[in-house]
């Protein structure tokens, strides 16, 4: 049964796309941070990676919550 707070199909699709893109961003950022020759840019990329990890967790939580409500 679909409860009131569960996500719609569209919302789930957007969140899944976002999660994929955030994960891609994390990979890119860490690879670029390794390759980067500028120290400041390296630090910037590490901080972006950190924020991206946080985003991915947020999205996972959102998707996970909705899965629990499908029962």
């Amino acid at each position, binding site marked *: 049964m679909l409860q009131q*707070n569960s996500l719609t199909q569209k919302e789930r699709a957007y969140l899944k796309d976002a999660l994929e*893109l*955030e994960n*891609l961003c994390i990979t890119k950022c860490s690879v*670029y941070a390794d390759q980067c020759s500028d120290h400041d840019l390296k630090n910037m*990329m590490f901080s*972006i990676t950190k*924020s991206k990890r946080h985003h991915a967790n*947020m999205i996972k939580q*959102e998707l996970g919550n909705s899965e629990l409500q499908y029962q």
Partner: protein
Amino acid sequence: MDHPKQFSPTSRNRLSDRDMLLDLMITEKHLSRLYDQGVLESTSSMTSNTFERLQADTHDNVRTIFTAMQQRGWYNPERAGRAERLSKGKQKQSTEFFDTTADSKYAVSSGTRRFGRRLSREQRPGKSGIFNNQKPETDFEDRQYRN
């Protein structure tokens, strides 16, 4: 483009620092568009808030990358019109001024002066056309109403 490329000394197959930042910025822009759609499509306020928070963070990241690129001279969007004015000088400014007056002339000629020209000769007011024929009828109706 005339930006200083920074190749790694070990391999020439790597991306330059500028290309890396540009790639990250484009990915962030793509994410931002996705979150915007997410906000518009979400049905519950909770999901909408999540998308908005993610969107705000994405904007912050893009701003950080943008500033870093701008500081290094890798991303310099020109101010609108400034480059043209610098290169063409006074002549360009005078045409710009002329353009604004042309707009008002257009408004006058299309709006007031030629108004009514699309009507055929018979339909124009003041000639022997439909307007002349209609006038007595309305007068007659008015008189009937008053009586």
